C-alpha cells in the first residue's frame, strides 16, 4: 500500500467530553467551549470495572462500555443517546463453546470503519478478537484469529501474560480500507490483516523482546500501545515493553526511537499518542521499568515526553504536574488527545486523577482527583 496522507482537520471549538473509565465505574468530564471550565458527572456503573468506554465518531452519540465486576462475567453496555440510557449487549463477546477458552474481560473497543456504520471491534483478555455489526448488541468471534491454529504459538497460553491477564488491544482500522487492520497483543506482538481478519501475519521485525530467550523473535513481543497517525496512516508508533518504535509502511521493519530518551528516564511506559494532524508529533508518558518494574513515574516525578520529529529527539513536558513524590502512572488506554487547535491532551492516573493540557503539553492542570484507578480515557 503506497503511503498516502489522509485529510485531518482541526475540530471546531465545541465542548469536549472526556470519558473516564475506572476500576469502580464510569465518569464523564464536560468542558466549556474554551476547555477552561470543567464539570464532572457520574458515576455510572458504580462498582463495575470499566476497562474501556468509547464514543462512536461516526454519529458522536453512541457509546460502548466494556465492563465486569469482581464476581460476575464480562459484558458490554451500549447507549445511543450519549450516555443517558444504557442497554446491555444481548450476546457479549464470548469464545466458541467447546473451545475451552473463557473471556475474562473485554479490554478494548474500536469503532469500525466510517463506511461500516454499526460495526465495532472488541479485544479481550485473554487474547480474542470480536466483531459486532449491530452497534454492539451482539458479538461474534473473528474466526481467522480466534480459531487460528497458530494463535497459541503467537500469544502463549491463556494463563501467560501480564499481571492483569494477557490482552488484545490497539485494534486499528485503516481509514482508507476497512479490510486492512492491525492489532496489538500483550503478549503476542503486532499483527496485520488485509482481508478483514480472515488471515493474520506478524509485523514485529526490528522490535526487541529481550524478556524471551530469542530477543528478536517473529512474534511473542509485548507492545503496550500501538497507534497510527491519522494524517498519515502508514506511519505507526508503538510504546513497547522494550522500547519505543516507529514503522513507516510499506517497510516491515520498526525503527527504535526510544534510544533518544534520557537515560535517567528510560523508554518504558504504556500509553503513546500521536498528533491528529502532525504525524511527526507524538507523546509518551514514561514509567519506572527498572529492576522489579515498580510501574510508577520515574523518581516520583511524572512527565510527558514529546517528540516533534518522529522520535529522533524528545522534550520533557511537566509544567503544572507534581514536582516530587507523585508515584502514579498511566495505563495504556488512559492518555488521549482532542482534535482542537491547539490539541488538548488528557491522561488519567492509577491514583484517580485526571490531568489535562489545552496547549499541547506546555502546561497541565488537574481536572479531577480522588477517582478510582483510571483504566481508560477517551474523548467523546
Amino acid at each position, binding site marked *: 500500500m503506497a503511503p498516502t496522507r489522509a485529510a485531518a482537520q482541526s475540530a471546531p471549538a465545541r465542548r469536549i467530553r472526556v470519558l473516564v473509565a475506572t476500576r469502580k465505574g464510569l465518569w464523564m468530564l464536560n468542558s466549556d467551549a474554551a476547555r477552561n471550565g470543567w464539570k464532572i458527572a457520574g458515576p455510572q456503573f458504580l462498582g463495575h470495572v470499566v476497562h474501556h468506554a468509547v464514543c462512536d465518531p461516526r454519529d458522536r452519540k453512541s457509546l460502548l462500555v466494556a465492563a465486569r465486576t*469482581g464476581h*460476575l462475567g464480562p459484558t458490554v453496555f451500549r447507549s445511543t443517546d450519549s450516555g443517558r440510557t444504557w442497554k446491555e449487549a444481548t450476546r457479549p463477546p464470548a469464545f466458541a463453546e*467447546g473451545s475451552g477458552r*473463557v473471556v475474562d474481560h473485554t479490554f478494548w473497543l474500536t469503532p469500525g470503519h466510517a463506511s461500516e456504520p454499526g460495526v465495532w471491534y472488541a479485544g479481550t483478555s485473554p487474547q480474542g478478537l470480536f466483531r459486532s455489526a449491530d452497534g454492539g448488541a451482539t458479538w461474534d468471534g473473528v474466526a481467522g484469529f480466534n480459531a487460528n491454529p497458530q494463535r497459541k504459538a503467537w500469544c502463549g497460553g491463556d494463563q501467560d501474560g501480564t499481571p492483569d491477564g494477557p490482552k488484545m488491544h490497539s485494534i486499528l482500522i485503516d481509514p482508507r480500507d476497512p479490510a486492512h487492520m492491525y492489532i496489538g497483543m500483550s503478549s503476542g506482538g503486532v499483527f496485520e490483516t488485509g482481508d478483514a481478519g480472515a488471515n493474520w501475519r506478524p509485523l514485529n521485525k526490528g522490535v526487541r523482546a529481550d524478556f524471551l530467550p530469542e530477543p528478536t523473535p517473529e512474534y511473542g513481543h509485548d507492545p503496550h500501545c500501538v497507534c497510527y497517525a491519522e494524517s498519515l496512516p502508514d506511519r505507526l508508533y508503538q510504546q513497547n515493553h522494550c522500547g519505543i518504535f516507529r514503522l513507516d509502511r510499506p517497510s516491515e521493519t520498526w525503527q527504535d526511537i526510544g534510544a533518544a530518551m534520557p537515560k535517567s528516564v528510560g523508554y518504558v511506559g504504556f500509553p503513546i499518542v500521536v498528533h491528529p494532524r502532525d504525524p511527526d508529533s507524538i507523546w509518551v508518558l514514561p514509567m519506572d521499568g527498572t529492576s522489579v518494574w515498580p510501574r510508577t513515574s520515574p523518581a516520583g516525578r511524572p512527565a510527558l515526553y514529546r517528540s516533534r520529529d518522529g522520535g529522533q529527539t524528545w522534550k520533557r513536558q511537566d509544567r503544572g504536574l507534581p514536582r516530587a513524590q507523585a508515584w502514579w502512572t498511566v495505563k495504556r488506554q488512559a492518555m488521549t488527545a482532542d482534535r482542537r487547535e491547539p490539541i488538548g491532551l488528557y491522561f488519567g492516573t492509577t491514583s484517580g486523577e485526571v490531568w489535562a493540557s489545552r496547549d499541547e503539553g506546555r502546561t497541565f492542570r488537574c481536572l479531577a482527583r480522588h477517582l478510582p484507578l483510571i483504566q481508560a480515557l477517551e474523548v467523546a
Partner: protein
Amino acid sequence: MTASASREAATVVRVRIPSPLRSYTGANEVAVAIPVLAPELPPTIGGVLAALDSAYPGIRFRIVDEQRKLRPHIKLFVGGRLTRNLADPLDSASEVMIVAALSGG
C-alpha cells in the same frame, strides 16, 4: 397439549438473587417455571438458569461462562446443598440460591 396440561408439566422454582444481579431482576427473589419434558428427564440446575435468562436476558452469562462452567466467585445452593454442576437434577428442591462471594477491595 391443553393449557392446563402445560401448566402441570412445569416445575416452579424460587430463585434467590444476590445483590450484584438484582439490576436484572429488580427483586431479591423470583419464581421461574421450568418445563418438565418427560418424567425421565427431571429439571436441572442448568434448566433453572436457562429459564432465569429467558425472563431476565443476560443474567446467565454473568454467572456461567461460555464453556457452561459456573464462574469462579459464584456459588449455587439447591435446597441448601452446594453444587457447581449445572447438570445436577433439582430433585425435590424448590429453591435455588445464587451467591456471589465477597472478595477483593
